[in-house]
């Protein structure tokens, strides 16, 4: 049979249909399997008087003919501001040497010592390839590279998921290896070495400072294992359970943090660079329930994490997704977090006492509660585009682990709260 003349059937049909249906322009219909989809986000995080971070994310994913998916994500963030250096507040002004050895900074009486030299730009690239192996097995492999001025991180991961029970049950297992390298300006301080404070302009200050530290950087490796189970309970309910194990070894000390050594009156005598163990093993248990009510969705999760540093933490996270009549969604969010202190956490050291093997005054590994209250508003646009706004208030409340304050420390704020605001705009197209 003779083929239709070489005329453009599609174009002719388009005209015919436009007349019939009174529709104006019509888009191409094919699977769009060869098109990229993008998610972009701009996030602001600001702590009162402390760190400010601005982050831009662009993520693209592309689906191929046999359901393979390639996802790539580029994140750029800049961090500026001040962060607690670990020393305790005093009734008198304090002077600290910057971690680089180049210059000093003063802290006013009564204030929590903050090191204001934080300024960094981080570039992170993530890639993931996912493909079905059989009708019920999905396999995925990915990698992650992250670089900032004094830090480099690389990781690879792979996981596999299998569906059972008419796809109502999914079991997954994954593994990842990460390598991190830190190379701070001015080198890494020797454990528990005294912070050198003196005349930075003197001719021998630089060589004296260098004597307190190693020239080179250091690194750590981390292995993570993950087991997961997802179960569809009924039309309205989905449950997910995860167990993960993480083992890190290498340098995990924060080279920018110190501990105050105080006398019986609570007066700082010296500042010692902190020292943490070179191995850490974590276990985490995670449970999540998503319940679809008639119109709304409740998404609640709980995580219990414990490690051999003796930090135990509990996290409860709840989101409630409420669709509005106009197709927009509103999503209140609440998160509560609490942790116990690491076994070697010390808010300060007492003069004359034996220095322990490990010690850190970093409030982030001390006893702490944290809470997030937020709200997200989503607006679906035409052609599958989506716009959303999120705003959240975050509060960290460090607490005493029971260490008895001495002298003037009784009247000073040792565990100051951190308040932060997060704002995010996301656009998918």
């Amino acid at each position, binding site marked *: 049979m003779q*083929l239709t003349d070489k005329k453009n059937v599609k174009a002719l*049909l388009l005209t*015919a249909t436009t007349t*019939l249906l009174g529709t104006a322009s019509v888009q*191409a*219909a094919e699977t769009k399997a060869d098109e990229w989809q993008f998610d972009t986000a701009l996030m602001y995080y600001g702590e009162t008087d402390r760190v400010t971070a601005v982050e831009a994310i662009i993520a693209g994913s592309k689906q191929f003919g046999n359901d393979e998916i390639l996802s790539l994500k580029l994140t750029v963030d800049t961090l500026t501001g001040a962060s607690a250096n670990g020393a305790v507040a005093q009734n008198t002004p304090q002077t600290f040497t910057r971690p680089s050895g180049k210059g000093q900074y003063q802290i006013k009486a009564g204030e929590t010592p903050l090191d204001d030299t934080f300024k960094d730009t981080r570039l992170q690239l993530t890639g993931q390839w996912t493909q079905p192996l059989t009708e019920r097995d999905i396999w995925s492999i990915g990698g992650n590279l992250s670089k900032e001025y004094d830090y480099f991180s690389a990781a690879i991961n792979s996981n596999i998921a299998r569906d059972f029970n008419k796809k109502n049950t999914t079991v997954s297992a994954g593994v990842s290896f990460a390598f991190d390298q830190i190379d701070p300006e001015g080198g890494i301080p020797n454990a528990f070495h005294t912070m050198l404070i003196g005349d930075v302009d003197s001719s021998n200050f630089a060589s004296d400072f260098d004597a307190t530290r190693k020239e080179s950087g250091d690194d750590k490796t981390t292995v993570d294992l993950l087991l997961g189970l997802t179960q569809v309970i009924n039309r309205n309910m989905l449950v997910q359970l995860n167990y993960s194990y993480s083992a890190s070894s290498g340098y995990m000390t924060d080279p920018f943090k110190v501990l105050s050594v105080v006398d019986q009156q609570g007066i700082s005598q010296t500042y010692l660079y902190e020292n943490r163990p070179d191995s850490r093993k974590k276990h985490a248990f995670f449970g999540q329930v998503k319940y679809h009510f008639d119109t*709304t969705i409740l998404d609640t999760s709980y995580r219990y994490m414990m490690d051999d540093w003796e930090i135990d933490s509990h996290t409860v996270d709840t989101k409630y997704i409420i669709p509005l009549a106009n197709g927009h969604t509103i999503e209140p969010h609440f998160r509560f977090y609490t942790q116990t202190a690491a076994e070697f956490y010390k808010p300060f050291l007492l003069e004359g006492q034996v220095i322990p093997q490990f010690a850190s005054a970093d409030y982030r590994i001390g006893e702490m509660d944290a809470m997030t209250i937020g709200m997200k508003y989503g607006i679906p646009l035409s052609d599958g585009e989506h716009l959303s706004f999120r705003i959240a208030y975050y509060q960290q409340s460090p607490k005493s682990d029971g260490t008895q304050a001495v002298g003037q420390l009784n009247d000073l704020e040792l565990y100051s709260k951190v308040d932060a605001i997060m704002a995010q705009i996301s656009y998918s197209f």
Partner: protein
Amino acid sequence: MASPCEVLIDCNDKLLANNIASAIAKEAWRIEDKYSRYNIQSVCGQLNEKAGQSCAIDNETFLLLQFADQCFQISNGLFDITSGILRKIWHFDCSDNIPTQKEVSHLLPFIGWSKTSLTDATFTMLPNMEIDLGGIGKEYAVDKAILIAKKMSTYPTLINFGGDIAVTGPRNENQAWLIGVEHPSLKEKNNVMVKIKTGAIATSGDANRYLLKNGKRYGHVLNVKTGWSVEEPPNAITVAAPQCIQAGFLATLALLHGKDAELFLSDQDIKYWAIR
């Protein structure tokens, strides 16, 4: 529509979903009542009844017949809504009961869109001719349903009238709709999985409707010019197009190209899934 029809709405608003579904059902029944060739009271039934006379038509009927006219032109006369009367002699019941050339030749004078005349207010065909909107009516209903869905909400919606399918856009979170194309002629293992984010798909073909005589197979796809079965068409073909009525026409037209069905579609850069 003589087949299961469904409306899928990706949303949580049950009330609105119900309203949309009722409006669409109402529209589907309206089109069915207006254009079913089985209903002698329908516009289509009346036009067939009054073949030979000049009949007044409304604007919607004019637009549909004009579309059929354009399909006839685009297909160089292969797609012809006056071909339905061939069913009087072709009964695809898997028997060996094929018509004689004499029977076929006897009907050919009453087939041919070019023997009709259409104005924006009247339609005329020769006595004993018949029109059948079967090839485009259901797909037209799907496209009309999509217009209603889009007007009533921005929620992602899929319309499925017996395998003729269209969507208003991607599902939530820009997900594609995953559609399993089931068809009487497809064995279960042959079911085609199709993903669409926009546009429509339609399927033509029925491998269960054929005649077999002296080892020769006569499929149900008939060439209007000869009145005989088209040779070696695919068992079924699913075509994607911006709108369902286009997909339906293209699927039917592809089958009419017989063994060259796939060639025709790929030549025109049209996305399709064929089962042979």
